[in-house]
């Protein structure tokens, strides 16, 4: 069986991202290591406390020559525009979590809104990555096969 262990998002500043994902989102730091033999590369990962087997790496776009300058600039712009991907999170109490996040300064671009599958909301991390937060109704899940008409 193949499991998901880690995924990764690009961030513009790892200290800012670390603060956001821990003090704002409530996740924990899993690894935060600077590796001298890799030119000072910092491997920073965070994850939800209730899911110790899953982590998200918060990495900065590497400088040239690892990524050429044009590619690096394009990637940074894509992240800043919110077009580099999303994290899809779920909760069992979207209203309480939304209010808690807003009390910590998180600005939602979509407040909790009713959809056929439950209530969904969205905000951006400081770098621009989209984070979706949904409370899914019983009977729905992201792994459910769509029912054909």
């Amino acid at each position: 069986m193949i499991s998901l262990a880690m995924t990764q998002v690009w961030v513009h500043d790892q200290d800012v991202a670390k603060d956001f994902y821990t003090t704002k989102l409530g996740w924990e730091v899993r690894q935060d290591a600077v590796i001298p033999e890799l030119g000072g590369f910092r491997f920073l990962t965070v994850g939800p406390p209730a899911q110790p087997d899953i982590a998200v790496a918060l990495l900065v776009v590497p400088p040239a020559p690892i990524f050429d300058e044009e590619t690096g600039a394009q990637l940074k712009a894509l992240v800043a525009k919110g077009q580099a991907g999303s994290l899809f999170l779920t909760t069992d109490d979207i209203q309480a979590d939304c209010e808690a996040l807003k009390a910590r300064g998180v600005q939602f671009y979509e407040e909790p809104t009713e959809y056929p599958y439950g209530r969904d909301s969205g905000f951006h991390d400081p770098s621009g990555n989209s984070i979706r937060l949904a409370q899914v109704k019983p009977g729905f899940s992201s792994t459910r096969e769509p029912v054909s008409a």
Partner: protein
Amino acid sequence: MAHPEPERHLLRARDLADTRYADQVDVGAMAAAAGLSRAHFSRAFAGAFGESPGAYLLTRRLERAAALLRNTDHSVAEICFEVGLASVGSFTTSFKRVYGQTPTEYRASHPTAATWAMVPSCLIQEYARRGNRTIREDGGAPTE
């Protein structure tokens, strides 16, 4: 710390459109959210996202209206005002141009297939938001 990428400020303005489309938010408010002059903002926004901020705002409103037509029993007039548009006539004209059907025809032709597949709403919002090919018709500020 200020974000080094200017696009992040433009995303903040787009977030305002996504959050406040139901209110009287306009391009001026979006420019203020980005911290840019209106003229500079409109150019920068179009350069980053491929459409003017006015077009983005209108098509976001129409996309939300389409969702309400599919998922609620609110009247066409109610939906027009719920998405922040002021004129039902302009709403119907804009909707038909962008979606190819009047709001009433659109509602009648759409089964509630989304009920059965958990496609996250953010993806529906992106894929359901049609392009706007001509000038806006909602009676608000001119297109920039």
